[in-house]
């Protein structure tokens, strides 16, 4: 088959654009990278300084407060098992990356979600970008991250933030839009300013939905952090990656199961946040 139409040089355009961006701006991003990577290392080192059982008790206590006894017991047993598998250090690395990425994703995503809910124009810009972010295969983000941030945890967390942010934005916007129209009318009828309406009515009522978004963000962050092991993010994903390269199915499953356990713990704990207020309101 012969095509006479010239190929549209999409790849070339993107490469040129990225090259231009890296050569002009990578000094900023590299600086950011140094600071962030130092921060991440610091947190990991600090967490590893504690004996594992201290952290296990702390997590179990947190789980108890937020999600009840069953989740607390499950978390404690799960973490003990990870420790026993000699996977404590990669587990801590993974948790740190997940939590930092989630934090950044939420800090950026919440205002964007609010903006998208309140302004049609913002929504019209943000929503297609989100579609793009969500449908693009996750590891494509890893490639351009490297020239900007170098190999390692920072690139991984940048890619993770991009990949995991959409639910935080979408569900924040959804939660705010879902506030019943008559409650908005009531807020307006009493002379609320837009800011008062947002903070006293819309956001509080959107909390359960926003928390569901945060939960989704955490789960996506975890799945991305594992993939990001390919660019040297380490952690549990790194263990899986090593096992693949050395063809050690046993080790691979060990780390894989560890990731599943970690995912379940994070999910069960964060799923319940925001439910508290819901049960208080709905009868």
């Amino acid at each position, binding site marked *: 088959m012969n095509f006479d139409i010239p190929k549209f040089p999409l790849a070339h355009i993107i490469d040129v654009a990225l090259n231009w961006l890296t050569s002009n701006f990578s000094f900023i991003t590299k600086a950011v990278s140094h600071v962030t990577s130092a921060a991440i290392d610091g947190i990991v080192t600090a967490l590893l300084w504690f004996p594992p059982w201290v952290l296990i008790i702390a997590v179990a206590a947190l789980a108890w407060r937020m999600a009840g006894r069953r989740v607390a017991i499950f978390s404690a047993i799960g973490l003990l098992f990870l420790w026993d598998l000699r996977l404590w250090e990669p587990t801590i690395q993974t948790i740190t990356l997940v939590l930092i990425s989630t934090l950044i994703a939420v800090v950026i995503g919440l205002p964007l979600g609010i903006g998208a809910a309140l302004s049609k124009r913002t929504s019209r810009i943000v929503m297609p970008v989100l579609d793009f972010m969500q449908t693009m295969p996750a590891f494509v983000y890893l490639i351009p991250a490297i020239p900007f941030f170098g190999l390692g945890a920072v690139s991984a967390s940048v890619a993770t933030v991009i990949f995991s942010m959409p639910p935080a934005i979408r569900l924040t916007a959804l939660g705010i839009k879902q506030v019943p129209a008559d409650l908005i009318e009531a807020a307006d009828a009493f002379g609320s300013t837009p800011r008062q309406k947002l903070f006293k009515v819309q956001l509080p*009522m959107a909390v359960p939905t926003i928390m569901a978004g945060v939960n989704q963000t955490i789960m996506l962050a975890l799945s991305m952090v594992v993939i990001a092991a390919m660019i040297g993010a380490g952690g549990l994903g790194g263990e899986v990656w090593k096992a693949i390269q050395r063809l050690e199915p046993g080790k691979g499953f060990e780390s894989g199961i560890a990731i599943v356990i970690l995912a379940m713990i994070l999910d069960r704990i964060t799923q319940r946040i925001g439910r508290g207020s819901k049960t208080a*309101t709905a009868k």
Partner: protein
Amino acid sequence: MSKIKVEKLTKIFGPRPSTALRMLDEGADNATIRDKTDHAVGIADVSFEVEEGEFLVVMGLSGSGKSTLIRCLNRLNEPTRGSIIVDGEDITKFDREQLLKFRQHKISMVFQHFALFPHRTVLDNAAYGLEIQGVEPAERNERAAESLKLVGLDGWGDNYPGQLSGGMQQRVGLARALATDPDILLMDEAFSALDPLIRRDMQHELISLQERMKKTIVFITHDLDEALQVGDRIVLMKDGRVVQIGSPEDILNNPANAYVERFVENVDMSRVLTARSVMHRARVVAFPNDGPRTVLHKMNEENFASILAVKRDYTLLGAVSLEKASEAVKAGAKSIEGLIEEAPSVSPDEPLMNIINVMAEWRYITPVVDENGKLLGVVTRTALLSALAESTSEEGIDASIATQEGETA
């Protein structure tokens, strides 16, 4: 000067109302305007006034524009044309700041489906308006608690709205609206979502609250019985236009057109008419020192089976029956004092339907007394029935009898 003066108020829904406005002025009807311009007419050239302290009911079926109208009064709906003068100021000209102040201090609203904030306690709901005004927590909680007390929810402040019944939730809605002590209260189908018994209670309470507070109330309803029950005056709407404005009596007695007539003919007259409208002056009464023979004579004159006994100043004592009087004559008694039975009495504002209930228990004429117990007149069975028959069409009577049976059963 009237409290609210609405003049030629028009609301067209849609982005470019000018064509629709022109067609409206040329006399086009709503359907034509909708087909030609894709704009919906909410209300068209509505004018009326509300006096200070008046209870005005705006009534119409769904789609008649009554909700649009009430939302124009606090500009939840932005009027397309016309003016709304409140206390001499045209609120349609208010800028953002003025509008917020107006909503915060002068006017408040009660909603059909309560619209309480589920994440806030009952007290915090009641305090919402004050919180928006920037009142300090201690003061606003105190005032909100007072407001809750006013609507009979003392002690419920720490509950969440979801824990309350519908009637109680609407009390919270009312407390929230009253907490800011506004001059004007807008009530959008406030009782329509409540079941009939609770609704009647709330109507009574609202009337008694209104007697104490003298707010200017604009109350929306689709229920004519409710309108007649609570309103000083009624604005009747159809297709976004005012059909008739008048007191309940005006509307019942002189329906402006077939539309109003159709509304009115289904009214349960026994709820609308009061004792005052059917009572007669008591032509003959018995005094305590009358002899039984005199009393018997008075009864025969009027052909009554009983007579009311009063003191010289017309304070009601009770009733004397024909049988007792004739027995006393045979026994040769000197006065009727021992013969007086206690008789049920009603106030002049008692609706006929309540009098019907009284009469079911009491065989004789029913006395109407003022608040000091003085006899004003009497209601006889004949008078009551003929009043109902006169003021109601055939269908109406059937309907009212049906309701009677339904309620006593």
